């Protein structure tokens, strides 16, 4: 509570000088949400995930992702490493099926599990609604590299979201998030994410690259490169167990 009061006091003091209105901040966040939703479109892309872990070394994996958010359908096929090629995760509503091509068997898996133990959580691949969970506390104009951005400080409006505080750097021009910082309940920086470039497909912006830096464990980082982005309609036959089996033949 004390912390919040301090932040409030500081922001009140700064208000007449730099600050943009909180209301404007909410509008920007709303745009950010809209920019990153995939409603109305299907999406397919290839993700290359490189994780650097000081104790486990460097790991590379490549996956194909297909999603139809309107119908709550999601399919992911592993391409690399070779030993895991063809393993598939098929999600329809809340059911997640895992396929092992070696035994040609499916199994039901829980949604909660971390995605391949990287710094990226499952939630990073899903739709998120910042405006529902966060209040904008402070907005100010800032520079990030060569970009003019708004730096938006947000605090969670309930105590059940993972990160109680986030700071976003959003381009003034297109409302694209370039950088975000996630903070813990004790106001410690946990994770810094960078989104240095985007692809615009239909009316949705999709980051080409995402870099997640673990701010607690030194030298721990995950880089996700997204390529072969397509928003073409995907056939329903794709989101079936039969397809997952077929693609492995």
């Amino acid at each position, binding site marked *: 509570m004390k912390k919040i009061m301090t932040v409030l006091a500081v922001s009140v003091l700064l208000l007449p000088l730099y600050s943009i209105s909180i209301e404007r901040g909410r509008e920007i966040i709303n745009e950010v949400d809209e920019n990153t939703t995939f409603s109305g479109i299907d999406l397919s892309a290839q993700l290359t995930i*490189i994780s650097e872990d000081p104790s486990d070394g460097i790991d590379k994996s490549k996956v194909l992702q297909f999603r139809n958010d309107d119908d709550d359908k999601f399919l992911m096929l592993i391409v690399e490493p070779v030993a895991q*090629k063809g393993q598939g995760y098929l999600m329809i509503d809340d059911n997640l099926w*895992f396929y092992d091509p070696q*035994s040609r068997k*499916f199994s039901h898996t829980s949604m909660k599990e971390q995605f391949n133990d990287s710094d990226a959580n499952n939630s990073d691949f899903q739709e998120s609604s910042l405006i529902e969970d966060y209040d904008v506390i402070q907005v100010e104009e800032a520079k990030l590299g*060569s970009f003019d951005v708004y730096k938006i400080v947000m605090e969670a409006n309930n105590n059940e979201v993972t990160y109680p505080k986030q700071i976003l750097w959003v381009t003034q021009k297109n409302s694209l998030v370039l950088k975000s910082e996630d903070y813990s309940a004790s106001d410690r920086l946990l994770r810094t994410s960078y989104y240095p470039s985007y692809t615009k497909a239909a009316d949705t912006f999709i980051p080409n690259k995402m870099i997640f830096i673990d701010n607690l464990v030194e030298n721990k980082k995950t880089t996700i490169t997204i390529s072969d982005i397509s928003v073409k309609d995907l056939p329903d036959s794709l989101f079936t167990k039969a397809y997952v089996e077929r693609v492995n033949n």
Partner: protein
Amino acid sequence: MSWILVRIAFRNLREHLAKTLIIGSLIMLGVMLLVVGNSFMDTIQKGIEKNYTENYTGDLFIVNNSVEEISLIFSYDAMSKGPRSVPEYEKVEKIVNSFDQVDKTTGQLNGLATAKWGELGEAFVVLFGVNPSSYTRMFPDGVNILEGSFLPEDGSEGIVLSKTVAQQFSDTAGQQIQVGDTILLTTINTVSGAKIREVTVRGIHDYGDASFDLQFISFIDENNLRIMNGMVANNIEDLDLEETEKEDLGNVSEDELFSLFSDENLFTVTDDVSSIQDDDDYDSLLGDTSDRDIALEVDPHAWNYLLVKLADSGDTDSMVRKINRELEKQGIDATAYPWIKGAGMSAKLADTLSIVFNVLIIVIAIVAVIIIMNTLVISVSERFSEIGTMRAIGAKKNFIRKMITLETMMITLTFGTIGVILGIITLVIFRMVGIEATNQFLQILLGGDIFRPSISVSAIFTSVISVTIVGIAASLYPVSIALKISPLEAMNKG
């Protein structure tokens, strides 16, 4: 000469009948306690051996040096950062078998999985991957099959469920799982990711209640567990990074990251560059999958542990040292440990309790022996005047020594034998009545539900011989004092 000696000794004993009986009864009690105590110790030792070394640990085992947290039941350590098998297994096997003391060896694989049977049946299994022929040769009585049979000898797939796991399936599914049913095992490893295997239930076994940490152990064919553990022959570890990917490694500079682009070129507008033209193209997305088959080929010599059974369990510690010396000399990154190091918590607790038990029995034995000694010392001390008289009438020192020795031997042997008989009777009564081990730990210690001490022949011999030797020593000491002083003095004493 010796005949006379025996007669004199015998007459002496009869003359001091009351004293003889008193000393004798003490010796009898001592010998009886030694026999019973030794037999208890033997039974407990065998109980632990039966439960562990002859059931699943062997006398010693060999494991990869990088596994720090060793457990033959399950070690997270052995799985968390890639499967760690015994390096150069065949060579290690050869080294171990080159020792004459080594009786048998077998490999063991470990794993964890969740299991599903049909739609509803769910269970959690701890897996032992074994070679059925060498495993059953090493532990002929180790696996107690309740239903069906052990894993097929020809190495074909299968699982032998523990009673507890089978019960779990039955509880969750609402019906009894049968031999011949198939179940799905799911697990995850760092090499080949998540794995699903379908296996046929070949049998149901039971380790018994006593070894509570073994109750989830189910046996599976070695090939299936290797696949589940990601123990592959061709480790394609080469990290294949493209140039741009290499550039992305290491520290991130915010300035660099955000100065390359500007608002104008921050995003590229895609006109859909997807190569997929029609729906059939989706079917060939993964392309050739033959490289996967090579990557997944299992290493047939990958084992987490090499278990070793010795001809004589007593050699365990010395053999561990010998094998470790040899492994080090050959530069193999593996270490041998005595069975107790890997046998799990119940074994450690039971082993400690058996040590406590044995120490206390030894203490009791020592106290008994010392009290016998003391009584003998007192009894001989009482005879100072008698010894003096005998010396005065011309008996040689040697004669007196022999006489007393003979007397003591006669007492200890006679009453020792009675003690042995009483001890055996006690043990037989114990065996017949049987002490029920109501407590799981007692069951481990005593090797079964009902405690029936075995009668140890070696214990009988050691008891009688040690009491005799101690008796002679105890009586000769005061005699030597008596002989040192002059006959006259001795007569006046005591």
